[in-house]
């Protein structure tokens, strides 16, 4: 994976995965938001683990994932 490629990060407290390509629009992070651009005091939306305790992972998605929201 090149340095420029969009990356995925996993919460070491609960396993919640953040994908730079998808962002978290419902939490104010548009698709494409880089990990480095997320504030350092950000915490896991599901368990509150600090941003510093996430790990960058290179793990492919299961078939059919990520499931995209249905068109309006």
């Amino acid at each position: 994976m090149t340095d420029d490629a969009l990356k995925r990060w996993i919460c070491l407290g609960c396993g919640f995965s953040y994908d730079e390509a998808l962002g978290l629009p419902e939490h104010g992070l548009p698709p494409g938001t880089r990990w480095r651009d997320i504030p350092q005091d950000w915490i896991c939306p599901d368990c509150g683990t600090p941003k510093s305790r996430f790990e960058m992972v290179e793990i492919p998605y299961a078939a059919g994932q990520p499931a995209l929201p249905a068109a309006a």
Partner: protein
Amino acid sequence: MSDSFVLRADERGYNRILSTGATAAYVGGHPDAFITRFSSFNFGEYQEGRHGFGRIRVFGDEAFHHPGCSYSMHPHHNFIICAFVLEGKLTHINTLGGLEDLGPGDYYAFCAGSGGLHEELNRYAEPMRAIYLWLLPDHLLLPPSYTRGHFDAAAGLNRMTPLLGDDAGAVPISQDVRVKRLVSDAPGTFRYRPRTSGHGVYAFVIDGVVRCDGSTLKRRDSKAVWGADEIVCETGRGDTDVLFVETVM
């Protein structure tokens, strides 16, 4: 070229988590209950140790004290969460429809995948002791699953018994990891051959004394070896109980 590290019992992280105060929402069983946790790798408040080993991210030696002691219902994603009950009874509740008691020898693999919730509870006065193992999965957002197994120590006496992974009789998991358990009551030599030289093995002594890859390991000591074709373990005359986690590196 093989490499290794030894982690002695008292070199692990230690946390005592109360059901009162700041952790009251995390641990149930107010006011007397508390959880003790020895961590082989960084987890929660313990961040002074190693990050993990291969695909292992958590290896916790935990005890739940007092009736009602629990990890209150909480979410998980992605991780393959395994628990091996050593003593007492663990009541496990999860959003895959499970509500059951696990006793000594019982274990489960909960692949959190695209998401689930679970609660771990000791309903009884006797402490519940378990080993918790968290593995990174080989795919993100897998369909969640929960599978239970049982290790029969009598049937497996003096034999390396597969518990998790792709060996016959083991509970399958979505990762290139195998967990085996050896309970021994007699001197013996066991040659563990990792699947490839790209696989490492984390050996944890639940009880007894074992000589593993040249190191004498006592109760709750552990050793990780990688890059080796074979890891030689020797048991002595007393009772020995060792958990082996083989992982792609």
